[in-house]
């Protein structure tokens, strides 16, 4: 905690003439962070994840001196997309390419207009408080009403060439205007020999009748820790299709809170988590049906090899007096090693009658019948396992409609599988 205090003080010194109200928010948030502290095994919602790696490490904030030479070929770049590039926490406007329909707003202005998006009062998540106190990168963007943006917008958070242990607290705020349509990729990637810590917060608002494809790719270096909080609010008739592909970080914790706030909103959230060595991926998803005629579908899959471990905790809440709710939640996990461990906990909290809900979770190994079937056709054991495992991941990938994103992710998942199946 001392280290975080030190860095927080340094940050206040670094920006001495920051807006008064914004500074108050930072101070309040840091106080709250100190009060809450790091999660312990005794906290029910956090019990399966050990945060001592983050707590006991001496991460420091990124200053201007931490901007490295930017690599010519930006890793993870997806074809035919707009770009917002952030390197070691520093926005690179000269390398970014933003369409006219997207306006980038100053943080201070965004905060003044939407103070509720920065409120931490009702949250007990220490990483949200920490991010709010130290937010130092990421952008607020606004997609104009009626704008239909065909090309996806790729936001790359690259961590590279560190000279010391770095931490970043990117804050992405995104508002999709009425009737607007967009595809946004939040892409966290890193390659460095030094450990680092990313603590991201994204708050995404879909206004009436808007549509968002949100792709979140987490392929941080295995040296890193990544904690994240993503919140969505969906207005009338808006549609969200979100896909999370995560293979990076030694420790990954993602909290998602999705509120179907007004009538007829519709959300699909899919996730594929790929872990090896002693990686640990922990995802907590809350889907809150707060209005009538809303639909939510969740499909989360984990593929775990070596000694890696995963946690899936999904909760669907259907509020009192809501009508015509349709909610599905499915979690499927494939263990490639006897030493891999999965902890799944799907939950429903239903306070209304007019509800169609389904939920379920399964964890298993490669089906030995399927393996024998393929081998009995002359396909080698190794290849047969690759086929079965990539078949397991296929529905998540197939759900991605943009072909450039889909082909990037297919290749990425294929490479991961090829690299991880050799030891099985």
């Amino acid at each position, binding site marked *: 905690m001392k280290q975080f205090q030190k860095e927080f003080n340094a940050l206040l010194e670094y920006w001495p003439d920051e807006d008064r109200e914004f500074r108050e928010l930072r101070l309040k948030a840091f106080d709250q962070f100190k009060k809450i502290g790091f999660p312990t095994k005794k906290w029910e919602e956090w019990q399966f994840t050990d945060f001592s790696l983050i707590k006991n490490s001496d991460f420091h904030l990124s200053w201007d001196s931490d901007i490295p030479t930017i690599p010519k070929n930006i890793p993870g770049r997806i074809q035919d997309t707009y770009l917002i590039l952030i390197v070691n926490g520093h926005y690179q406007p000269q390398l970014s390419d933003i369409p006219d329909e997207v306006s980038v707003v100053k943080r201070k202005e965004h905060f003044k207009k939407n103070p509720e998006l920065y409120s931490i009062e009702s949250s007990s998540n220490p990483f949200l408080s920490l991010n709010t106190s130290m937010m130092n990168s990421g952008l607020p963007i606004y997609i104009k009403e009626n704008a239909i943006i065909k090309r996806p917008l790729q936001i790359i958070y690259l961590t590279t060439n560190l000279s010391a242990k770095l931490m970043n607290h990117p804050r992405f705020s995104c508002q999709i205007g009425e009737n607007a349509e967009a595809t946004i990729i939040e892409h966290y990637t890193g390659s460095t020999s030094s450990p680092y810590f990313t603590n991201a917060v994204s708050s995404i608002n879909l206004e009436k009748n808007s549509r968002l494809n949100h792709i979140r790719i987490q392929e941080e270096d295995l040296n890193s820790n990544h904690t994240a909080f993503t919140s969505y609010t969906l207005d009338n008739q808006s549609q969200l299709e979100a896909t999370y592909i995560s293979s990076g970080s030694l420790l990954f914790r993602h909290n998602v809170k999705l509120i179907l706030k007004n009538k007829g909103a519709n959300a699909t959230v899919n996730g594929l988590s790929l872990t090896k060595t002693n990686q640990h991926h922990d995802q907590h998803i809350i889907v809150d049906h707060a209005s009538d005629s809303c639909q939510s579908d969740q499909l989360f899959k984990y593929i775990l090899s070596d000694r890696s471990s995963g946690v899936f905790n999904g909760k669907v809440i259907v509020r009192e007096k809501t009508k015509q709710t349709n909610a599905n939640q499915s979690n499927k996990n494939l263990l490639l090693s006897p030493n891999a461990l999965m902890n799944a906990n799907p939950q429903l909290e239903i306070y209304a009658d007019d509800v169609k809900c389904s939920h379920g979770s399964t964890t298993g190994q490669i089906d030995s*019948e399927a393996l024998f079937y*393929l*081998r009995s056709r*002359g396909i080698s*054991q190794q290849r047969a396992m690759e086929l079965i495992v*990539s078949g397991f991941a*296929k529905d998540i990938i197939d759900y991605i409609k943009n072909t450039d994103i889909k082909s990037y992710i297919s290749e990425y998942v294929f490479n991961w599988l090829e690299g991880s199946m050799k030891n099985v």
Partner: protein
Amino acid sequence: MLEIKNLHAGIDGKEILKGLDLTIKAGELHAIMGRNGSGKSTLANIITGRENYEVTSGTVKFNGNNILDMSPENRALEGIFMSFQYPVVIPGVNNTYFLRAALNSKLKHNELKEVNAADFMRLIREKLKLVEMDEKYLSRAVNDGFSGGEKKKNEILQMLTLEPQLSILDETDSGLDIDALRIIAQGVNNFRNSERSFLAITHYQRLLDHMKPDFIHVLIDGKIVKSGGMSLAQELEEKGYSWLEA
């Protein structure tokens, strides 16, 4: 082609086959009949190399080579095929992709040029007609959402594509309606030639009426107790198995 001598084998320490002898020559179709639990499926599993079965004594030779230490994939590459009694659903693995992977595995083993996607489509469409299967089954995942009959046709489709020397038909007739049975029997009959051998495992005479096996064997308690021609099948249909039991 296939030569089984004094085979003793079982699973989980329980002996199921108790000294089985069987020789199948090139071009022959043999049928094995018997009650549930007599060891018919165990025999098929041992020839194809399914894990967990233990052979305690005896030999199984294919083209003169002992196959008991070979992996299932190597047995397949050498020319052994089984049409599964319960074809397995493999979610997310495209049926065409799977069939081509299997064929290319075999072509590569035989040091032949692998087939590209376009040539394979031409080839598979031809084979599809032989089993009267709709093309839509090619774009689905392996056996996913197939009816019982389509699953069995898909097995025969694989046989026609991979062109094995020895095909084991494990209760291929079970769960089929009359039309599907006729199509499958026709598929097998057209595939027969002087080089290819078959071992059909069945409960019923109706498949045999279509296929006209050269030999019929009755398996009781892990041993072949009687062998004969088509007339034996008729006799079994009339009298059951009890007259052959000790």
